């Protein structure tokens, strides 16, 4: 089973984490920008207003102290021009004249006495009149023909008229826009850098997790002695690896104990069995009549049955505990079935049974060949033992999704009702069956040890139908060399 962890970065957790982190980061940056923008705008406004009110006062003073003769207009114009050159935040205008500042003096009746600025000043004056200005405070005034409002301050004159000084907010806007652009560019860079940093750190961390997962799944499938890669850092991931390895230690220990028990049991029983068998065989060779030989031969037969029973029992026990040691290789099931059927066909036809193989193409599985040979042999032995003459057995093989499906079906009387649900238990067998009831238990155990399964049912025609599923051979996944703890 290849690990199904997302390899595409777009589906990885690292991607999602960094995306969310970036969003939060961008949102925070936006807030900071808004605050900063507001602060700067206020500050500029404050400075402009201070300049305006100060300047309008001094212009009013000049106007007051200047005799109203021919030079009055020139003096005031010059003073206004001069003042306009000191506008705060001013960017030099390329247009001739000065369209960012205007100065106006109006008489009591609202007639324009003096105008410094671009245009005739009529539009300005109309707008100013509509704006209800208060003395000593600056107010935003929208003037026809200008996109950007003017900030205008007003001082009443002694003659009952007013002096107005207005400055365009264009420069202020420009400063703020400039600030916004710079902030946007800088913010983008920061957010991007943040994204990259978050992405790489989480990816590094999650790669460690993925390596652990992959190693763990590999270990789960085959080799209990290897360990997940340990990281040097003592963070959560490092702890995870350590915990997993400790768990694996314990599992390996239990497995080892199970192996030791079954091995020593096997050894303790096998040695005397070997000795007994040898002695029987020796007495067989010294026996000189058929009468003497008969009991010895049958004793040997019984002994062989006993040791076969012992072997299969222990195999089933180990497989049940997922402790069957597998030496896997790529096996073509079709080839195995052909050979097996070739082996069994004579015995079958001797008993009046027919056997046929249905399948299309080779089906490759990654299994322990010896165990799978025995699995198939058990299935065919089963048929050979239970079917009555005239029956036929159909073996078929197909690949389905990620499994090779081997079906053995006959047209006999099917599984007896009383054992049907317990077919794969040890010692369960039909009443008439001469076997020891381990055959199907072994089949099931082997299939399970390979990550497959067996199902039994009575087919449509009433015959027995056994279906064995074994995982298909997959192309070995390229695995990066991993660190294995020195254990």
């Amino acid at each position, binding site marked *: 089973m290849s690990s199904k962890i997302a390899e595409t970065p777009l589906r990885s957790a690292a991607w999602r984490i960094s995306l969310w982190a970036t969003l939060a980061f961008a949102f925070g940056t936006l807030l900071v920008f808004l605050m900063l923008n507001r602060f700067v705008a206020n500050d500029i406004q404050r400075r402009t207003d201070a300049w305006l009110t100060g300047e309008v006062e001094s212009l009013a003073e000049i106007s007051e102290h200047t005799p109203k003769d021919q030079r009055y207009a020139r003096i005031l114009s010059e003073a206004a021009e001069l003042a306009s050159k000191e506008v705060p935040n001013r960017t030099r205008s390329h247009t001739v004249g000065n369209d960012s500042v205007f100065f106006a003096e109006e008489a009591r009746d609202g007639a324009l006495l003096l105008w410094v600025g671009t245009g005739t000043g009529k539009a300005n004056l109309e707008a100013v009149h509509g704006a209800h200005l208060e003395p000593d405070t600056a107010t935003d005034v929208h003037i026809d023909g200008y996109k950007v409002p003017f900030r205008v301050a007003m001082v009443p004159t002694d003659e009952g008229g007013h002096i107005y000084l207005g400055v365009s907010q264009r420069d202020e806007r420009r400063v703020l826009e400039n600030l916004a652009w710079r902030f946007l560019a800088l913010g983008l860079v920061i957010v991007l850098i943040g994204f990259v940093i978050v992405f790489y750190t989480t990816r590094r961390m999650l790669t460690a997790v993925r390596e652990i997962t992959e190693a763990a799944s590999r270990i789960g499938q085959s080799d209990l002695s290897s360990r997940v890669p340990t990281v040097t850092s003592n963070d959560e991931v490092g702890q995870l690896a350590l915990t997993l390895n400790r768990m694996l230690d314990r599992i390996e220990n239990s497995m080892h104990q199970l192996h030791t028990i079954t091995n020593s049991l096997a050894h303790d029983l096998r040695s005397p069995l*070997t000795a007994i068998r040898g002695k029987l065989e020796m007495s067989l060779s010294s026996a000189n009549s058929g009468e003497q030989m008969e009991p010895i031969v049958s004793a040997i037969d019984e002994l062989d049955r006993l040791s076969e029973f012992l072997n299969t029992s222990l195999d089933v026990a180990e497989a049940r505990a997922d402790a069957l040691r597998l030496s896997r290789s790529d096996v073509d099931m079709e080839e195995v079935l052909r050979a097996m059927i070739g082996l069994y066909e004579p015995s079958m036809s001797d008993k009046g049974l027919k056997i046929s193989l249905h399948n299309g193409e080779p089906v490759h599985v990654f299994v322990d060949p010896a165990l799978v040979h025995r699995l198939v042999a058990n299935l065919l032995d089963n048929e050979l033992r239970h079917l009555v003459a005239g029956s036929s057995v159909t073996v078929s093989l197909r690949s389905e999704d990620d499994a090779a499906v081997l079906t053995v079906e006959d047209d006999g009387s099917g599984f007896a009702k009383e054992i049907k649900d317990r077919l794969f238990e040890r010692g369960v067998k039909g009443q008439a069956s001469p076997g020891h009831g381990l055959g199907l238990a072994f089949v099931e155990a082997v299939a399970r040890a390979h990550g497959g399964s067996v199902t039994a049912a009575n087919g449509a025609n009433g015959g027995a139908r056994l279906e064995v599923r074994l995982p298909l051979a997959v192309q070995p996944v390229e695995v990066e060399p991993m660190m294995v703890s020195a254990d």
Partner: protein
Amino acid sequence: MRVLLVEDEVEIRSFLERSLTEAGYQVEVAPDGATAEELAVEGSHDALIVDLGLPDVDGITLILRLRQLGVKAPVMILSARRTVDDRVRGLEQGGDDYLTKPFALAELLARLRNLLRRHGSGGNPSTRLRVMDLELDLLRREASRGDEALQLTPQEFVLLEYLCRNAGRVVTRSMILDQVWGMRIQPDTNVIDVHIYRLRGKVDTAGHEPLIKTLRGVGYVLKDR
């Protein structure tokens, strides 16, 4: 033929020693790895029989060590372990053989003979096999008895070839399964017997001396004289 038997179980050692001697071998015994090493290096044995579960050293380690020391004799491995270790598989590919306990004495003797023959002859690639009046053409895959051609299936031909190569020696059912079908299985039905029975029906026809003999409880032998 000198054989070194390395086995720690007294019972098994004694009956193996006796039956090997009866079968005509000169037998030396060693109860543990250290003795085995001494004996193997001193004397030149034609074959070694090594039990994997020795008290002082693992059998495989012993074999690898003996190989390092220049002992070239083929090894018959006896194992009480059911599942076959990959290392044993490796040794088997190197020309040695293994048997799991309990084994039939006849099986051990048959395999031992096989091992010695394989090791001794080096296998000359003859294209014809001849046993009495039975003749096999290995290139054309044709068999004949006297002037009579035998109609054999490819599988039957392989089986007969195996019997011929071991003419005069006992072959057991599991040896046949192993060598002819390439399977290490122990079917509890009579699959091999039926194959032999069929083959016999074609080879030992009326008017010819029966060649394929059954040894009850042991296996089969193709008579060579």
